[in-house]
């Protein structure tokens, strides 16, 4: 014997507010609600256990989304033909450049060599910024002058990696908003030339509903293989992780938890569950 629509909405409301306050996107919450309502309407339950049951069904639905696309990143790196080209894309200021420095650090821990490619040839100080990271981490950086063609820098870096037997090319790109058609086209062109094995979308945990729009559009233009969610240490609950996973169905590989090169750790779905339901 099921539950009425009104009763369901009332029970879900409290959980909904919690999800909204954790920055899970409104449209994603509505979709998840729709997904679980069928299950809940036909559920049989004990009168006094109804709140618990509703929460459990919601938890399972969310956990399913977060776990459904897990991949083992290091297995992928170790088993793939070298050089592996990893292209980092995302909106302005999300943390792409620092994520590359953290990635190079992690790879080196596993004895995997990398070379950085200064693919942001537009923004003030971008090449200098990545150069300092390369120097600190102890990896080679391939760079051209400011204003150079990012695709040419990528091509040059891949050539270098092949010649010097480097395992991974970490390709930095300029930040861009999906409403800028020219920059979306530029990103597509860099992909055509660099033929990356992995395109990583670097998203900001501080962002709210717009994370859905960003991930959707970037995925449409170049296809995203994995996501890194940064700035989780800022006290952001990181609900955008669920929004992005739900929207594009791609794995959340790492989360950024600070400025240090060690501050990029594998994503644990349980961590997100505790955050959202904590």
């Amino acid at each position: 014997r099921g539950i009425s629509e009104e009763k369901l909405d009332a029970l879900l409301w409290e959980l909904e507010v919690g999800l909204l306050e954790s920055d899970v996107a409104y449209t994603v919450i509505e979709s998840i609600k729709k997904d679980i309502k069928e299950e809940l309407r036909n559920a049989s339950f004990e009168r006094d256990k109804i709140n618990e049951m509703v929460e459990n069904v919601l938890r399972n639905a969310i956990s399913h989304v977060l776990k459904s696309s897990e991949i083992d990143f290091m297995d992928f790196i170790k088993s793939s033909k070298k050089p592996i080209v990893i292209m980092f894309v995302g909106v302005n200021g999300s943390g792409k450049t620092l994520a590359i420095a953290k990635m190079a650090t992690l790879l080196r821990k596993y004895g995997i060599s990398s070379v950085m490619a200064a693919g942001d040839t537009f923004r003030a100080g971008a090449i200098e910024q990545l150069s300092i990271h390369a120097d600190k981490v102890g990896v080679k950086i391939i760079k051209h002058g400011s204003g150079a063609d990012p695709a040419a820098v990528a091509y040059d870096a891949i050539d270098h990696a092949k010649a010097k037997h480097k395992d991974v090319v970490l390709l930095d790109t300029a930040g861009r908003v999906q409403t800028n058609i020219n920059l979306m086209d530029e990103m597509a062109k860099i992909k055509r030339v660099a033929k990356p094995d992995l395109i990583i979308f670097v998203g900001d945990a501080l962002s709210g509903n717009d994370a859905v729009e960003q991930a959707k559009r970037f995925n449409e233009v170049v296809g995203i293989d994995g996501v890194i969610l940064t700035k989780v240490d800022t006290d952001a609950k990181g609900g955008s992780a669920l929004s992005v996973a739900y929207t594009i169905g791609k794995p959340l590989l790492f989360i950024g938890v600070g400025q240090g090169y060690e501050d990029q750790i594998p994503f644990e779905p349980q961590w997100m569950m505790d955050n959202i339901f904590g």
Partner: protein
Amino acid sequence: DLGDSLRGTLKKIANAVHVDSKLIKEVVRDIQRALLQADVNVKLVLELTKKIEKRALQEKPPAGMSNREHVIHIVYDELVNILGDSRELPIKKQIIMMVGLYGQGKTTTCGKLATFFKKKGLRPVLIAGDVHRPAAYEQLKQISEQVKVPFYGDKSEKDAVKVVKEGLNKFKRVSDVIIVDTSGRHKLENDLISEMKDIFKATKPDEKLLVIDAATGQQAGPQAKAFNDAVKISGIVLTKLDGTAKGGGALSAASEVGAPIVFIGTGEHSGDFEKFEPAGFISRLLG
């Protein structure tokens, strides 16, 4: 004009023969959805929609105003209330300190502000107060060259207060507008919040501008509060409005710090900068 997605909602009122509480509740639910999707703080949205519903049910439309116009007026009125009294940065000699979370657009906005004041006939200078981020010095220096204003920084100095004091001493007599860039930081970093307070004490800025990315979600309010507790914020700059984000976080921040949004950023170039207009912002927020 309250934006496209509410147009349908408001049509319900326009077409209704009798505006009853059921219809009002339906309209308020649509407004709530729009505000939540725009990233306005959840508690603030619930407070706002309660107020809007109460007023829509209790107030009679003034003579000559349709029911639909009356609801629009109430919604607009309540949002403008949160935004606070508009203010413009005065066109005079002053010290401006830029603060905010990581990657919001502080450094880029320094260049935009310099261009703005230069056009008004003043002589701005950019001070590289971010001693942490790799190549922050180079970034601001290149921006200063692009917008053709003087620059001060010290690549080898790790003490932000020292750099800023030196910059102030060197330029206070030759420059009118001293724009101090600072590092990104967040409310849980006690040492950096301390640094911000120290820079504030050392420079005694006329303006403390909080720079906020339009895509910022529920953290906008709490972080703004922490920044405001540390250095009283005098204005907000809302950036990256050239994207699709609605900027609801700025509403939450304005409510927390009791200071208005003064400028918006609409791109990466120094000219992508406009004075804040409440009407346009509200229309986009609800759209």
